[in-house]
């Protein structure tokens, strides 16, 4: 589903944020991406849907190259890739329903979507998905009146409305308290199991990574230093990822 070859990203003042990443992620996998902050987790996820353009290397989603794609192709790829952000990145003054419907923009007729006229079918889909993520009856509420946990669920609803093949989640729970973190992870696990959506989530809490990830990829200084099932994450592996100071 996702193929990454020789991926490198240099930022001004931060060379080798990604330093030669090779990855292959199959359809329906649930991958937890772990590593210390600054290891390149965000950069890697953002390269996968073209929000960040890598310095070198290739990214494929399905049979479509993301790197070097025209803006038209890139939009088509993004339409099938949901992205859940740490800070939710919702439009705070818009309603829950409007925010969720943004997931239909790439599928809707362009000029109608500019006027905010979404198809009745899209509205129905939105209602269904809002119910599914536990926001039933909150569609008309302004997003900034919701709790953090509810806001992240709106963001997940937005991603699901894209009817994605892949959902990328960048620290989806680190703005939330621990109890809510589990609800959000639970939700991601459900869409992975029930809809067969491939999920790649970066997490900085090891315990969450181990209980939700079927496969753990450890990044350190822009390189993949660990790749395996949760059971393989022993003390040596942890040290390799987080350095000797990690408990």
């Amino acid at each position: 589903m996702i193929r990454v070859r020789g991926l490198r990203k240099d930022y001004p003042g931060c060379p080798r944020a990604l330093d030669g990443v090779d990855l292959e992620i199959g359809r329906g996998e649930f991958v937890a991406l772990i590593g210390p902050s600054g290891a390149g987790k965000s950069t890697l996820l953002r390269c996968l849907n073209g929000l960040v353009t890598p310095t070198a290397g290739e990214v494929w989603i399905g049979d479509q190259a993301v790197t070097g794609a025209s803006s038209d192709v890139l939009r088509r790829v993004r339409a099938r890739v949901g992205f859940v952000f740490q800070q939710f990145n919702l439009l705070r003054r818009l309603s829950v329903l409007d925010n969720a419907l943004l997931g239909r923009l790439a599928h809707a007729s362009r000029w109608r979507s500019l006027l905010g006229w979404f198809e009745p079918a899209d509205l129905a889909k939105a209602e269904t998905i809002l119910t599914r993520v536990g926001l039933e009856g909150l569609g008309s509420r302004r997003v900034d009146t919701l709790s953090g946990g509810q806001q992240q669920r709106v963001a997940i609803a937005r991603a699901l409305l894209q009817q994605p093949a892949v959902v990328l989640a960048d620290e989806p729970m680190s703005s939330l308290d621990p109890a809510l973190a589990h609800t959000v992870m639970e939700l991601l696990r459900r869409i992975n199991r029930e809809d067969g959506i491939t999920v790649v989530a970066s997490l900085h809490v090891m315990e969450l990574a181990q209980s939700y990830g079927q496969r753990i990829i450890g990044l350190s200084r822009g390189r993949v230093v660990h790749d395996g099932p949760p059971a393989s994450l022993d003390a040596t592996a942890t040290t390799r990822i987080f350095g000797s100071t990690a408990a």
Partner: protein
Amino acid sequence: MSRGGRWAAWAVILGAIVWSAVATEVSAGRMIEGLPFMWDFLRRMVPPDLSVLGNALRGAVETIQIAVVGTVAAAVLALPMGFAAARNAAPPWLFYGARGVLNAFRAVDTLVYALFFVAAVGLGPFPGVLAVVVYTATVLAKLYSEAIEAIEPGPVEAVRATGATALQALRWGVLPQLVPQFLSFTLYRFETNIRAAAVLGFVGAGGIGFYIQTYLRLLNYPAAATVLLVLIGLVMIVDFASSRLRARLV
């Protein structure tokens, strides 16, 4: 700051106040001598002469009209100017140019523009409208540009990440962040413009100020009192309605 430096700063501030007071002939004696005249002035206004209520209301309506047309036209002009004066929306040459022009035009107040436009296009409400437009457009452009610079990039990125086009990202990522603020700023300037338009009549640029000035000149204090009461009522109603509306927007 050292102790000596602090004393020196206070001495300079105090010196500036005394110097200004002397130069402007501030005098408690003259103020007290003037009190009976102020009292006399107020006493002659009572009771207000309600027979001029028609004129007062006509003036009030014209003031509202000047403020409405002036504010709306200014908002339309301010929109492109606001983007030109936003650091994150315009190239540097345009940004610095636009900022410079806006600052220069904003240094002069509505009433001064009114004098200029009365000389240019003659008496009446039209020069008043032009004066309101010029000053308000520059103020709104500055406020708009600050709102544009404060846009959160995160939600825009999120909309782009759904596969949206640039136009869709503008419509759904940028505009929802800007429109409520733009409307709120514009309403606020409308409130201010009601007050500004009320004095435009003093320089012959239309509105309720014309009647205040005329009746004061004729020493017809009861009539002036009626017009002033209408003006006070007008400002209070507009302030109340506008602040209620703004509270709902943001």
